[in-house]
């Protein structure tokens, strides 16, 4: 039964992804794939955040900063020319770390190759996540939320105020990422279907990965911490390490999403690190049901898709603010919680009646 549910909940998204693409292409609405692809990358971010918020119980109001760290690192490395001696260039080129590419004016320059930039982005994010996470995860409740908000804002201000990161203009002209010529991660129309499947492949892989993580010992430790941190600690769970690991995993996922999205869009701007973006991620996770991964996937995908298609017009921010209020006010455990409670109540009712009848008869 459990295996069936397992397969079903995973297969369902896969089928939905394929069906969407087929349907869109058949109806001549292939352009939906653009926003669907972008939405997939944001789904990766929210899934990671769901692990942190829903399972480890730690709120982060600054997760946009990790997306931005990843995106900016790869953007800067793949667009800024390097000055290396020829010998170094030869070695690194052979290793696939650097390559010659044309800039906007058509002038060939030496830049870091996307795979190496990706690795660098993840390493930087790992370092920052450890640096930030280690002290702040000792905080509880709203202190942690505020500290992460502060962190996100610092990253935003630094990106906004530094000419090296493009200041307010951000970085543009980010090249596509070619995977051995078979597939290129870019935003061009002729590569759209392949990019759609790559993006959703990444999102579903993230889903699978996190599901397995949650079902492992680590996941159980997180659940224990979420339930009652002190008791978990008393039972021998290394609460600090577990929380930090969850934080780092979610940060790395956000950064990876940032890298892919930046190659897809061809650029990135400081708004990705802003407070509104980070609050939006929290709203999406809340709307999906906190720790409910498929729920978060569906909510994020749907709402982000609509937002990117201008369904909300100038009220975009207001919509997410309203969602945040609505969900947290009426269903702090997630929108499906009232339903869940009702179902559980129902399930408990029958054995209770049987028990009462038995006692009555006795």
């Amino acid at each position, binding site marked *: 039964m459990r295996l069936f549910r397992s397969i079903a909940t995973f297969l369902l998204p896969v089928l939905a992804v394929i069906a969407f693409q087929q349907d869109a292409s058949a109806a001549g609405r292939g352009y939906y794939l653009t926003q669907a692809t972008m939405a997939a990358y944001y789904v990766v971010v929210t899934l990671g955040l769901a692990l942190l918020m829903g399972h480890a119980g730690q*709120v982060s*109001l600054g997760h946009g900063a990790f997306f931005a760290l990843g995106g900016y690192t790869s953007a800067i490395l793949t667009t800024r020319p390097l000055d290396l001696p020829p010998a170094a260039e030869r070695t690194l080129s052979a290793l696939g770390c650097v390559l010659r590419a044309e800039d906007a004016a058509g002038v060939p320059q030496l830049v870091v190759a996307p795979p190496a930039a990706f690795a660098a982005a993840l390493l930087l994010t790992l370092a920052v996540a450890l640096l930030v996470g280690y*002290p*702040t995860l*000792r*905080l*509880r*409740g*709203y*202190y942690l*939320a*505020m*500290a992460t*908000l*502060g*962190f996100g*804002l*610092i990253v935003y*201000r*630094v990106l*906004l*105020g*530094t000419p090296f990161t493009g200041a307010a203009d951000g970085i543009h002209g980010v090249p596509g990422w070619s995977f051995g010529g078979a597939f290129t991660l870019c935003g061009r129309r002729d590569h759209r279907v392949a990019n759609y499947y790559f993006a959703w492949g990444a999102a579903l892989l993230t889903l699978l990965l996190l599901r397995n993580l949650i079902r492992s010992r680590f996941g159980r430790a997180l659940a224990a911490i979420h339930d009652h941190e002190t008791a978990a600690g008393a039972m021998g769970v290394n609460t600090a390490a577990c929380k930090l690991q969850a934080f780092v995993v979610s940060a790395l996922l956000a950064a990876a999403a940032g890298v892919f999205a930046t190659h897809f869009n061809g650029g990135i701007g400081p708004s990705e690190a802003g*407070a*509104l973006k980070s*609050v939006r991620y*929290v*709203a999406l996770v*809340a709307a999906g049901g906190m720790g409910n991964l498929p729920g978060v996937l569906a909510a994020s995908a749907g709402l982000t898709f609509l937002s990117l298609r201008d369904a909300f017009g100038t*009220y975009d*921010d*207001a919509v*997410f*603010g*309203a*969602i*945040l*209020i609505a969900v*947290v*006010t009426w269903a*702090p455990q997630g929108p499906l919680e009232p339903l869940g409670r009702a179902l559980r109540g129902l399930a408990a009712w029958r054995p209770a009646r049987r028990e009462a009848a038995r006692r009555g008869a006795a």
Partner: protein
Amino acid sequence: MSTFLQYILSGVTVGSVYAAVAVGFNVIYRTTGVLNFAQGEFVMLGGMVAVTLAARLPTGVAVAVAVAAVGLFGAGLEWTFFRRLRRHTPLHMVVITIGLAILIREAARHVWDEKVRSLPFFSGTSVSSLRLFGAALSPQVLWVLGIVGLAVLALHLTFRHTLAGRAMRACAANPDAAQLAGINLGVMRTLSFGFSAALGALAGCAISPLTLTQYDMGADLAIKGFAAAALGGLGDPMAAVAGGLAVGLAEKLSISILPAAYEDATAFAILILVLLVRPHGLLASRSAARSG
């Protein structure tokens, strides 16, 4: 030397603004335990409403009406909405108030659009300044500090010496016992929201000539005001004022070592440091903030 002194006066100028917001945070927190992120929006609304009214009414009257209106709005928010949030943790409340702040901001944009506005200076003109050893301070800053100071004094007296004030403190310390003692919890909470909103609105009017009023000014104010309140310790309005001035000074003094572009980041860095090192605030004592 006069340059350095100017940094300090500049720090006092922006610090007075943060202090005003911090005191507002403080009031609601003391009586309801809620960290109200919409506090920044009350400040914005005060300025906006006053500017709109000032086109037809004398400035003083416009300010008074604006303060009353925003105060009623704040009280109304508590009465219709916050009242129902019983089983929510402080973290939930923070998130909810952030969502509320976003909604208020968007509504303000819809009503007033994106243009920048301001009230006239309460005294003097836009270029009047008080000179202190070669550095200058706008008299409006003294108005802001004066208002904040009066508010703190009023709070101090109210909380200590009036029945209503003592009732509010009781509600914060032990809601159940307070209720048993016959204190109407609901009324107290509504009053404190109303007062905090009114105070925020008054601050918004006072700072309007200095900072100019714009629909999106609330968010930064809320975060920095919270940093100030946290620095001073959430329990004490006087400490909130000190916290505000401290944040302002740190921000402005930072430009002597960092590029001015990172000024704001300094305030946020202070926030993080305070939360990490002394989450109860540097000046907090027995009335320490709650955890979790």
